[in-house]
């Protein structure tokens, strides 16, 4: 207890230096936490994936379509519980900067397969009854001030032209990781319009979503589906929803990797700053360490004091950094909600913050404590005066 009191007093003896070091560590932990949250936000689709859902797409690329006729064939594969399908629509609202993640989906099967999109029953009914109907996440509705019954016009990118929809439902995400920025409308509406405008693009879909009866059937069902369409004009690749999402992320892996690297570099930099501070502190304490050794305090006590002091400073900085991460993430989510629809500071990020803080505290104390232990008492006492 006495030594704890001593190391606490020592930690804040140089108030300005301690404050600057604590601030530096807090900012580094804040930056680290934010960068890790960005990485998590990148993987949010993966986290929201279900183990019983598969995605089938064209084996050449996601941008190549599949025939609608595959629907019935896939439905008959043993182990398949339900099949839905859809196409990526994209689109912008009012101006190019308002990108909308819109999908045309086979509504009846889709809503059953994705219970995490919680749509009130009356709104679901209204949506199902209206061919031009759409439903959106509450986040995107709030962003654009959309209300039930509003007519929304999207400008199509993949399917050019202005597309009109009537907002029939606003869903809430069941889990924290469920994106609430999505836009869904009837695939039939898209298909019928294409039949009139670009008939060669009609009756084609972007992907099938397959629900299997139990997770362990995912692999055999995927193999079975792909083998069914082998040597056809549109060969398929069937993978779990998670693998499908990871495939998307793989396209931007370099960015994710760069963010991860920067997050570690931030910690390494603050490690060097903290180590420098501890080295200065330990140099100032040479005389005191010599006195403690003279009085009979052995190396373990000296190491405890140096490490303890370093860990106290690091712990305070880490605590402040973690506290600041929450409001900072709130501001970040508010400003960059378009790009990161789910931006939550996860428990894992907090654990990583704590681990980074401990590593900074421990690393910063290694060299100063080694020097303090090696210090010859006579040399240390000579420094005083």
């Amino acid at each position: 207890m006495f030594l704890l009191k001593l190391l606490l007093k020592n930690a804040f003896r140089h108030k300005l230096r301690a404050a600057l070091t604590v601030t530096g560590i807090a900012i580094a932990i804040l930056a680290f936490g934010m960068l890790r949250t960005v990485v998590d936000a990148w993987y949010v689709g993966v986290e929201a994936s279900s183990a019983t859902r598969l995605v089938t797409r064209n084996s050449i690329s996601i941008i190549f379509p599949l025939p609608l006729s595959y629907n019935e064939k896939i439905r008959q594969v043993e182990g398949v519980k339900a099949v839905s399908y859809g196409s990526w629509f994209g689109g912008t609202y009012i101006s190019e900067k308002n990108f909308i993640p819109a999908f045309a989906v086979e509504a009846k099967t889709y809503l059953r397969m994705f219970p995490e999109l919680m749509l009130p029953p009356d709104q679901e009914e209204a949506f199902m009854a209206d061919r031009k109907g759409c439903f959106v996440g509450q986040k995107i509705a709030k962003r654009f001030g959309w209300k039930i019954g509003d007519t929304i016009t999207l400008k199509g990118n993949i399917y050019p032209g202005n597309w009109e929809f009537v907002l029939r439902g606003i869903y809430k995400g069941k889990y924290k990781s469920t994106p609430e920025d999505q836009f869904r409308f009837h695939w039939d509406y898209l298909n019928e319009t294409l039949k009139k405008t670009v008939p060669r693009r009609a009756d084609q879909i972007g992907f099938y979503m397959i629900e299997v009866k139990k997770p362990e059937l995912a692999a055999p069902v995927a193999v079975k589906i792909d083998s069914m369409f082998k040597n056809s004009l549109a060969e398929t690749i069937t993978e779990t929803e998670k693998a499908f999402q990871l495939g998307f992320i793989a396209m931007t892996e370099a960015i994710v990797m760069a963010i991860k690297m920067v997050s570690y570099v931030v910690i390494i930099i603050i490690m060097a700053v903290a180590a420098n501070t501890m080295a200065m502190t330990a140099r100032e304490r040479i005389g005191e360490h010599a006195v403690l050794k003279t009085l009979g305090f052995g190396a373990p006590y000296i190491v405890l004091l140096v490490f303890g002091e370093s860990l106290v400073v690091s712990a305070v900085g880490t605590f402040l950094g973690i506290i600041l991460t929450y409001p900072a993430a709130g501001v970040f989510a508010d400003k960059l909600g378009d790009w990161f629809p789910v931006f939550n500071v996860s428990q894992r990020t907090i654990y990583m913050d704590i681990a980074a803080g401990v590593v900074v505290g421990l690393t910063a104390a290694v060299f100063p404590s080694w020097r303090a232990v090696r210090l010859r008492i006579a040399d240390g006492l000579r420094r005083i005066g």
Partner: protein
Amino acid sequence: MEQSSRPVVEIKGLSKSYMRGSQAVPVLQDITFDIMEGEFIALMGPSGSGKSTLLNLIAGLDKADSGSVIVGGVDITGLTETDLASWRASNVGFIFQFYNLIPVLTALENVVLPLLLTRLSKKERINHAVTALSVVGLGDRMDHYPSQLSGGQQQRVAIARAVVTDPAIIVADEPTGDLDRVSAGDVLNLMDRLNRESGKTIIMVTHDPRAAEKAHVLRHLEKGVLTDVSS
């Protein structure tokens, strides 16, 4: 309390040199003498004569190149660093020229410090420290930090810290070197009392002839060699 004829410290053939670059500079050469139990000895000599080095070797703060230092029957030159640390904690009290108190601890906490290495309870540690501070006349300054005390008072706290574990030997390196005349007198009187009333063996390095007057034995060092003994 009378001094006995039993040697408490036996120094035999002690030599020590420091390396300056690649050259060995001898500091102590073949020093041999005994210090009796309860003796108050002053080591004198010009700067660089090796007196502080000799004191450090007797107190187990440094290692000799050759020779032995036997304190209370224990050859401390053969002890490991860890054993030396615990030996110092229970056998030697230290008084330094610049007091060497821990600035973030109060007078009481500074005196409690060496007792942390004992088996005493917290209450017993505080009681011992309060008694030691009362003995040196600082019973009313226990909660003061070193920066709130005068030089003389700080040195008295250092003396309380040196005696609180009740060591047999007290080593003092220029204990009055940083004090004014009055404070130096107080400190010397205190050390004299500790020697006479408590029978502590005191080994003091000093330049100050007034301080040396308090000692029973004066030993002079010149260029690392004992030159003179006077009582």
